């Protein structure tokens, strides 16, 4: 985490002169000097860095260059939008991806399997934004049943605004979440399939067959359980990737989330937002990795039991 903070900080300070970026060209030199003083830019680097870290851990990131509002406000406004989108997409991608992956792994040949695989390959080749555009065109313009942009009505729960509780909100989330999940889903299908196929070739599966265990039981009890272990790691990284790809989806659907914010920031070289986004993402990833490690502990007996043996 510290590494990330440092990177953000360097971004903040060394990429262009913050002052120049913040104020217009008419500001006089005196006023600039004053601003510099207030922002503490004249202090030695390490002081600035520690201040940055302290502020960051309190969620204080400074002021956006472009929008002139505190970054933390901007982020907390947009956060729920992105998170809701990501969660729905994650569920769609993981559930359908795993199911289809298992199916094609077990039934290696067959028309349905081949079709699913072909479509999954197509899915990997379709850039998210193209899918988004096509969907909008199909469902919004031609069929006109789903909204093409925006989030619909939201209900404000105080610190969180949710689109789940309104019909228009729910309608609005369908297209973006399916678009977002598609890329990941195809990836998961291929991964799970490869896992399943590899497991079905192992000796212990062969031995189970030799003992007369029924095929169905072999597939679900033996193979699947083993196959899910690596999927968990992937699921973790997946969520991270989804957050990143949400940038694209949000742009296409004009979904008011953090990704959209970030893109604008990059275009206008709005450093505070960029660094804040970075820190936030890093935090999310570290959390996810941590959770995945804990999950591994519970699922894989090889890890769990060994540790008990050492300590007990």
């Amino acid at each position: 985490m510290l590494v990330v903070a440092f990177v953000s900080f360097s971004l903040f300070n060394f990429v262009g002169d913050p002052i120049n970026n913040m104020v217009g060209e008419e500001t006089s030199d005196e006023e600039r000097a004053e601003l510099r003083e207030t922002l503490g830019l004249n202090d030695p680097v390490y002081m600035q860095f520690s201040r940055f870290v302290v502020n960051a851990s309190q969620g204080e990131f400074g002021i956006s260059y472009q929008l002139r509002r505190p970054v933390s406000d901007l982020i907390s406004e947009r956060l729920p939008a992105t998170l809701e989108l990501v969660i729905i997409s994650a569920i769609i991608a993981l559930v359908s991806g795993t199911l289809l992956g298992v199916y094609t792994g077990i039934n290696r040949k067959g028309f349905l399997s081949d079709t699913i695989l072909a479509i999954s390959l197509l899915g990997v080749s379709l850039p998210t934004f193209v899918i988004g555009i096509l969907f909008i065109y199909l469902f919004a313009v031609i069929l006109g049943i789903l909204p093409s942009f925006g989030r619909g009505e939201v209900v404000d729960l105080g610190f969180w605004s949710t689109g789940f509780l309104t019909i228009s909100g729910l309608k609005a989330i369908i297209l973006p979440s399916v678009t977002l999940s598609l890329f990941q889903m195809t990836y998961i299908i291929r991964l799970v399939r490869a896992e399943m196929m590899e497991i079905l070739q192992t000796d212990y599966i062969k031995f189970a067959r030799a003992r007369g265990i029924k095929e169905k039981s072999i597939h679900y009890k033996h193979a699947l359980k083993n196959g899910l272990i690596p999927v968990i790691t992937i699921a973790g990284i997946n969520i991270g990737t989804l957050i990143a790809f949400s940038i694209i989806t949000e742009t296409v659907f004009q979904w008011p989330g953090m990704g959209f914010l970030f893109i604008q920031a990059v275009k206008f070289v709005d450093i505070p937002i960029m660094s804040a986004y970075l820190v936030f993402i890093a935090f999310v990833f570290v959390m996810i990795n941590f959770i995945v490690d804990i999950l591994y502990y519970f699922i894989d007996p090889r890890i769990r039991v060994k540790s008990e043996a050492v300590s007990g």
Partner: protein
Amino acid sequence: MDNQRLTLFNRIKDSDVYFSFIKSPTAIVSSIILVIIFFCSFFVEIVAPFNPFDPASLSLMDAFTPPSWSEEGVAKFVLGTDGQGRDMLSTILYGSRISLIVGFSAILFSLMLGVTLGLTAGYFGGKYEMIVMRLTDVQLTVPSILMALLVDGIARGIISRELHDEMAIYVLIFAIGISEWPQFARVSRAATLVEKNKDYVSASTIIGLSNVLIMFKHILPNIMRPVLVIGTIGLALAIIAESTLSFLGVGVPPTTPSLGTLIRIGNDFLFSGEWWITFFPSIFLIILAFSINLLGDWMRDTLNPKLN
């Protein structure tokens, strides 16, 4: 020597790879498509019916012409024209060239960086390996798009606006390249670890070969298989990445539009009915990526010794 050349050719013909290629219709079809696309892109000046960047040849009167098979279509503009009167087919071909150049260069850069780091990390081990692997782990948690965006953003901050347009392509190649290197490093390192334990490597050490020679003469050729698979798939990803970035507006400058830029421009006209401006570049991009992926998929299946 004639004898040697003959055996090389026969070796290829006899090999499992060739056999599997001939037998796989998808591999053949996708290769043909790719060859056509590559050819057209490289010789685009000859192949394209028009030069869309020559202002003299444009006329606003031709703007918004639909594709030739629709009512208002004109034969000479096969796929219609855009808002400036540029022929769609030509712009697509020029655009694909940009996309391909950026994609290839980025992946090549990624490959060289990643393989070198992965190979040396796997071979030497120790603290060096640990550091490299940590780096890849950290970077792998950051999705490539994000990485590319970041690098691009930083570059924008550093380079002044005017220079930026000129350097944009290089920045883009660097950004996408940087975002993909961990995949190559991971794969190379894993494969190197496997090879390192094989006896022929020990034999080479015992004979007295230097580490550099062992790595590049012995180990490298033996790890290229999985690297190539990742490379092909990475190429598709790089092309998609580039088009995504261009679509978002942070990719290639508008003066040298790639397929992504075209799609973005066309997007604005989607709702007013001029669908072809976005549609055809999209289809082209999809075909390109799909063919590369098909080929990569076939490669993965063929080069995998386990799936018999």
